[in-house]
């Protein structure tokens, strides 16, 4: 087992030089570094914290302990979604959960985190550059940072994320190291031909389901794939499996130019049709539509507003996005179009992590592979997966309408 080397500065933090909060955070970082056999710690330039989502009394006790001990983050730190929408507090039905969620979100702001409350911090300004070491939590943000931005983060989660922000350090292990970032298996997607917007989450779900601990290299992703497409792919791959990094040849910055010698798995249309049948319930009846998982980008909101020109919606329609994106939408008149058409715009949280949708609803349509994966277990609904145009057409018709 390698020994863990700490710098004099890190030893001092551990010994209490910077106060009890930093010492506690450093005990967590050092403990995790030892378990993952890290030889040293690495300095990080930013953090994205997921611990602000409420999981019980322990969530509050930990955050309050850090606040009481005077801890402050020492790198720029964004916050993930919480358990309530602070801009529209009436949307969450469970008032106890909303109150606890609000208290937790406030505690993380007290620690010096920026109140971004979004699962898509890569849609905000000042995102990490290629090669930067960061400590990001939230599986879809992790896979985006590693794959699309070429920043370096391992998979961090509750408690560890904020401890990294407070110490400015993470264990030098896993995807922080170049050796762990190389592609190890090729997914040949060329038989898929032209991609629709639903191809990306279906492909992501498939890769996540079968890839195990390997690092996938994707061949045949169209060169015009947008960041929103890669977001949908990564989010689905990270929720269906443990994917924290993928390479798309010709698109993502660390993708290899040659894939000779790697094992190859071919992905064809039949595979994705099977994935769609697995993820999506066959139903005609529909109670609501929920999109924006991960949080919708500005461009996705504009596209929705364009699709909404026409006959009115017959069903409740939810759109989750970042509060920063909502402000931009409001400034440019897009928010007014969305809300005028009957869309409920949710910020700071998401419909599958808290109590927003009616408990009587059985069938909810989404364009997100991640939402379709988690919502049935989390909020007891059956998910119907469709493209954005299918979601809008279905909300207009009052029942499921699919293109083909």
């Amino acid at each position, binding site marked *: 087992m390698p020994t863990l080397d700490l710098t004099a500065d890190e030893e001092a933090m551990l010994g209490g030089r910077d106060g009890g909060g930093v010492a506690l955070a450093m005990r*967590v970082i050092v403990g995790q570094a030892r378990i993952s056999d890290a030889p040293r710690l690495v300095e990080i330039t930013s953090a994205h914290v*997921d611990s602000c989502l409420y*999981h019980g009394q*322990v969530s509050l006790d930990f955050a309050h302990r850090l606040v009481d001990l005077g801890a402050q983050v020492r790198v720029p730190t964004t916050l993930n979604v919480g358990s309530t929408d602070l801009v529209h507090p009436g949307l969450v039905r469970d008032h106890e959960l909303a109150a606890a969620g609000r208290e937790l979100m406030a505690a993380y702001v007290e620690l010096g985190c920026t109140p971004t409350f979004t699962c898509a911090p890569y849609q905000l300004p000042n995102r990490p550059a290629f090669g930067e070491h960061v400590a990001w939590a939230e*599986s879809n943000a992790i896979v985006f940072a590693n794959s699309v931005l070429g920043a370096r983060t391992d998979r961090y989660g*509750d408690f*560890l994320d904020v401890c990294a922000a407070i110490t400015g350090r993470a264990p030098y292990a896993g995807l922080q190291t170049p050796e762990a970032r190389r592609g190890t298996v090729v997914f040949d997607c060329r038989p898929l031909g032209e991609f629709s917007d639903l191809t990306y989450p279906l492909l992501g779900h498939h890769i996540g389901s079968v890839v195990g601990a390997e690092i996938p290299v994707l061949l045949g992703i169209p060169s015009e794939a947008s960041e929103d497409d890669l977001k949908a792919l990564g989010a689905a791959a990270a929720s269906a499996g443990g994917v924290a990094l993928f390479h798309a040849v010709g698109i993502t910055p660390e993708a290899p130019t040659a894939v000779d010698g790697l094992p190859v798995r071919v992905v064809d249309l039949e595979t994705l049709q099977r994935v769609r049948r697995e993820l999506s319930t066959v139903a005609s009846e529909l109670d609501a539509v929920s999109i924006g998982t991960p949080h919708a980008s500005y461009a996705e909101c504009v596209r929705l507003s364009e699709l909404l020109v026409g006959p009115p919606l017959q069903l409740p329609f939810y759109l989750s996005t970042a509060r920063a994106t909502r402000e931009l939408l409001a400034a440019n008149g897009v928010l007014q179009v969305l809300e005028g058409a009957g869309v409920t715009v949710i910020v700071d949280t998401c419909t599958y992590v808290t109590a927003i949708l009616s408990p009587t609803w059985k069938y909810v349509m989404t364009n997100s592979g991640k939402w379709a994966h988690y919502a049935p277990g989390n909020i007891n609904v059956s998910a119907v997966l469709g493209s954005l145009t299918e979601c809008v057409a279905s909300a207009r018709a009052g029942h499921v309408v699919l293109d083909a």
Partner: protein
Amino acid sequence: MIIHGRTLHPGTASGTPIRLTAPLSFWGGTDNEGRIVDAHHPQCGEVLTGRILLMESGRGSSSASSVLAEQIRAGTAPAAIILSRPDPIIPLGALIAAELYDLNLPVVVASYDAIPADALVQVTDGRITW
């Protein structure tokens, strides 16, 4: 009998073993009463509270640390967890519970195949006896 394993979190516990045949995520996989609720898990319905949990590794969401720490606080967690390969998420939950509540749930990596199903197992840090 005695086995020496690698201590991921120190502590002392005793209880009867429960062996899982598939990895378990505490988040989404167990409820606040320590019962396995993941419908796809082969041991769905079993209660882990107070047992010596033997499983290959944790699985899935990093929110599992929070769920385990919350169960330790509430007294519904297993008595000890023995894994066959290191997993950072489970000992993190144990470490946070120790920091906040001074409650220590031992987490050990050891090959546990020799432990009989009906044994009374004692765990003291990395030392497992029955």
